[in-house]
């Protein structure tokens, strides 16, 4: 037991301790090289510790409790892996200009992100969440351009408003539960007499971070201006924090709320389709990817809505959401990192690079034998209309396939815009390493990482072949549509 | 009894005249004279009223004597002051001279800050 406590503590203390490196200017090069090392203890904890690891910190804030459970383990692994890959990439990517400041804000955001995943008491969860949000601002405005400052202001304004909503929601929930632990909140919120207000506040508060429609404005502004490793982490791991916030505080499995479920499903649908419609018109690759994140989060919101609507499906849906989060995080991370890669000189090298860039995209839209396929199948298997009775239940399959088409469209749009934007030249070795790590973990490592057990994916080779057609037709449809659009643009 | 009242009333009259003169007259010496008039008036009242059932009462006599001594001392002091005041400022009344007499002091430091 002692080892797990130490590892959990180390996961947070190591990044915070690395801040000492910022004290003297001439240590900044050493700081830069130790960036990738910081998430290692967290990754180790994620991989080795069982779901019941916990660390009691009575003195901390209002009585601290850190630990893991099934869901948190997946989030921890995703966050640690993504920060590791982005860290390696950042070592190559970073210029000397304001390096120390970037490293400081990078470590603070990392500490916040890791902390909120393993925090199980309300005070430290909220503290780490705030630390991640405010430090994230440092990454967004790092370039210092006018556009970056504007994006930073919007990000901060919405983040602070979100924080306040979360604070009020948590206050009312804790007051109802009169215990400081997150585990007791869902039950308390379920029977709270002002349940609708608490749920509205929590949904809105975390929704700002998760990019719900009408609360997503900061996302497409912040991602393009942030440095590439930062936007990779921002879109891969930090957005998921909002989702995690929902999962640990809202009353899943306590009471089934078809009304709320329906609202969330609508929002999810609007998010996924709207994201695609808006994303396609953008010229900058990172903006397109940002909208793709919004549309993917829309799908996840769909699942959260479903979980809310039907109490006894909450458990399995949690597992599928965990799977989907893992898949999307890694894929989106590698896509973002690829935006900064320059094409090698040789023709064959270029073709190889394009294939490697396209693969995570295709996996996103559910190409068989990829992580996307596994998560899409798991999602389809669970989101059958007859399981749920809220208004939009019958349209679930249609929504999911429309989502898949939308994702593929965005991927094509991204590839098309990336072709025009990318330059040729050789990349520093660390950028290759970082991007490679992200792509491999997205494509290959996915199958070996600890999934949630209940994700009911039957023997993956058999199911892939059997339902291949249900996975492939949206991809083909999207490819046809984008080919037609590409030719019409060519003529003009 | 009536003679005592007569003296008392005479005293009161004297005080009245003296008081009127004291307030009305501007010249300092005249004021001083008026003051002496009031003094005598008071002493007259004192003697007049102080009859103890017929026999002469020694106490008021003693008091009047002391009163007269004090009045003389006060008058002497007043005359000296008025003479010195006349010598210094040529004024015989208490009226303030026209200009404000505080000249900004130039020379040596004076204890009182008043012009030396």
């Amino acid at each position, binding site marked *: 037991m002692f080892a797990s406590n130490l590892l959990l503590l180390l996961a947070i203390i190591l990044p915070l301790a690395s801040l000492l490196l910022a004290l003297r200017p001439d240590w900044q090069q050493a700081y830069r090289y130790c960036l990738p090392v910081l998430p290692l203890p967290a990754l180790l904890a994620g991989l080795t510790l069982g779901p019941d690891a916990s660390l009691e910190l009575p*003195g*901390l*804030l*209002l009585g601290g409790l850190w630990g893991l459970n099934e869901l948190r383990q997946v989030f921890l692994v995703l966050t640690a892996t993504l920060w590791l890959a982005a860290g390696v990439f950042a070592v190559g990517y970073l210029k000397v200009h304001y390096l120390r400041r970037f490293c400081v804000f990078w470590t603070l955001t990392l500490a916040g992100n890791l902390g909120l995943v393993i925090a199980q008491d309300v*005070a430290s969860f909220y503290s780490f969440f705030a630390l991640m949000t405010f430090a994230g601002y440092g990454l967004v405005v790092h370039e*210092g351009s006018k556009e970056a400052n504007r994006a*930073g202001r919007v990000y901060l304004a919405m983040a602070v408003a979100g924080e306040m909503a979360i*604070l009020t929601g948590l*206050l009312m929930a804790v007051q109802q539960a009169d215990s400081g632990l997150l585990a007791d909140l869902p039950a308390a919120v379920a029977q709270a007499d002002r349940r609708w207000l608490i749920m509205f506040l929590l949904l809105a508060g975390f929704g700002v971070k998760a990019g719900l429609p009408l609360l997503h404005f900061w996302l497409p502004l912040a991602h393009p201006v942030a440095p590439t490793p930062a936007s990779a982490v921002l879109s891969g791991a930090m957005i998921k924090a909002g989702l995690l916030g929902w999962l640990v505080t809202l009353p899943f499995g306590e009471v089934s709320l078809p009304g709320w479920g329906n609202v969330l499903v609508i929002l999810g649908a609007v998010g996924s389709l709207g994201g695609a419609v808006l994303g396609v018109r953008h010229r900058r690759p990172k903006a397109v990817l940002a909208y793709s994140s919004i549309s993917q989060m829309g799908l996840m919101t769909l699942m959260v809505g479903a979980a809310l609507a039907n109490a006894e499906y909450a458990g399995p849906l949690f597992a599928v959401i965990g799977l989907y989060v893992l898949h999307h995080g890694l894929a989106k991370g590698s896509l973002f990192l690829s935006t900064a890669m320059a094409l090698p000189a040789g023709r064959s090298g270029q073709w190889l690079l394009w294939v490697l860039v396209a693969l995570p995209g295709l996996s996103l839209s559910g190409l068989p034998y990829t992580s996307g396929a596994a998560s899409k199948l798991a999602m389809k298997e669970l989101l059958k209309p007859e399981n749920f009775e809220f208004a939009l239940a019958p349209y679930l399959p249609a929504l999911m396939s429309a989502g898949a088409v939308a994702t593929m469209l965005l991927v094509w749009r991204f590839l098309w815009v990336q072709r025009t934007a990318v330059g040729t030249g050789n990349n520093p070795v660390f950028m290759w390493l970082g991007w490679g790590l992200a792509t491999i973990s997205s494509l290959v490592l996915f199958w070996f990482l600890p999934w949630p057990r209940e994700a009911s994916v039957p023997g993956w080779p058999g199911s892939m072949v059997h339902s291949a057609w249900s996975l492939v037709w949206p991809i083909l449809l999207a490819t046809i549509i984008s080919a037609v659009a590409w030719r019409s643009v060519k003529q003009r | 009894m009536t003679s005592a009242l007569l003296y008392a009333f005479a005293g009161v009259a004297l005080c009245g005249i003296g008081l009127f003169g004291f307030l009305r007259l501007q010249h300092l010496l005249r004021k001083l004279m008026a003051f002496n008039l009031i003094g005598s008036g008071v002493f007259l009242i004192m003697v007049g009223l102080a009859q103890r059932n017929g026999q002469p009462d020694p106490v008021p006599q003693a008091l009047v004597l002391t009163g007269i001594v004090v009045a003389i001392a006060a008058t002497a002091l007043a005359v000296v002051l008025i003479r010195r005041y006349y010598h210094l400022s040529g004024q015989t009344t208490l009226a303030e001279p026209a200009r404000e007499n505080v000249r900004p002091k130039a020379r040596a430091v004076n204890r009182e800050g008043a012009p030396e």
Partner: protein
Amino acid sequence: MNLSVLMPVFALMTSLLASVVLFALPEKGHRLRTIINLAAAILKIALVGVMIWGVAQGCKYEAAFTMLPGVEFVLRADALSMLFAGLSALLWLLTTIYAVGYLEDSPNRSRFFGFFSLCVASTMGIALAGNLFTFFLFYEMLTLSTYPLVVHRGTTKALRAGRNYIIYTLTGGAVLLFAIAWLHGLVGDLRFQEGGYFSDIAPSMRGPLAIIFVLMMVGLGVKAALVPFHGWLPQAMVAPAPVSALLHAVAVVKAGAFGIIRVVFEIYGLEAAKDMGLLAGLSVVAAFTIIYGSTRALYQVDLKRRLAFSTVSQVSYIVLGLCLLGPVGVAGGLVHLVHQGIMKITLFFCAGNYAETLGVHRIDELDGAGKRMPGTSVAFTLGAFGMIGAPPLAGFITKWTMGSGALAVGMDWVVAVLVISSLLNAAYFLPILHRLWFAEQCEPWPHERRWGRLETSAWLLWPPLITAALMLVAGLIANLPFSPLSWAELIVAREVAL
């Protein structure tokens, strides 16, 4: 047994004697003056520490003698007084260190430090006062000892600020004296007694007592900078930085708030004040001050004036905390007395550093200051986030406790006030942080001074860092026995239990 009588007197005497000695010192005796200052401050912290330990064990410290027929001078150390005494003793040491560095080569230093320690002596007196008469005695001494500090610079602006300060505080003092005399006439000499006196008063007395309460709130509200009487605080910012740091973060402003706590807790008693309907009005005034202070702070261009208006709004948290009636909410208000002191003094120290080292007074001159003075800017950032209430800093603990206290009592609008004020705090602090860290320095500093390797003189740099660390620790260890929060809960437990 006489030790327990003499302890509060010793605590008071340290700074009184120090001030007498400092006044007598010749202007050139800098080294000796610093030694005396630091020795007195350390001695005071030791004494207060011993008393805190004693009070925690429950033993009584009290010294009293009859000063006038029917009225006595009482010095008493109880839990509540130790909260305020501990805060002022600790921050006095840091501010003395800061002041020594700040007034490096300015004139009138023996006068400054004399009145400086006199001011802390009166703050200690206010903390230790055992009855309303002694409290008033030190309350007025505080006014007199702070006037020369406010007008220390001798410029016309400083003198006008001093004049306003005197007009406000002396009028407030006169109103308070009227109320205390009337109360004394009604019910005789009242010692501060946990739980208060008026829980079961005759209805006939209810009228005059209500009027007396309002008068006291006016008298104390002047120093606690409640809205209609806060005018003097922003103007008093012309004083040198250590003065505005100690005065407006610890001594003067807190004296008013502490007085309100004493009156509501230990004269009227919480229940009596509640069912006489007095706290409702007070909470509305406090809430309005919080919002008003923050909105006014938004429009200030001068850094110290913005901090001053922020003080106006933050002090009313304490008053609002009182009106929450529930034990949790009141503990939140009490603990904010300490937290606000630590946070605000950090911000004032940093503002003083910027003014002293870079000659920067306005906010728009702060671009790129983070790069030039990283230590001070980190302390300022921590202070700013503390004020906004971002966890895990001390400010969050206050807002969290007060929020849950308000919900427990059903006063939901208080949570709304807290949220709005936090948003406003963010609105006027975050732009400053943006300028500090992310803005490029366009024009050179007005008049910069160099201290070799360090960004500014060691005397000026260490205090803000220490107070920032204190604030972080106060937030992180809020649950340990001797943290401000648990001490506040101890006080409330003793108050409400009776």
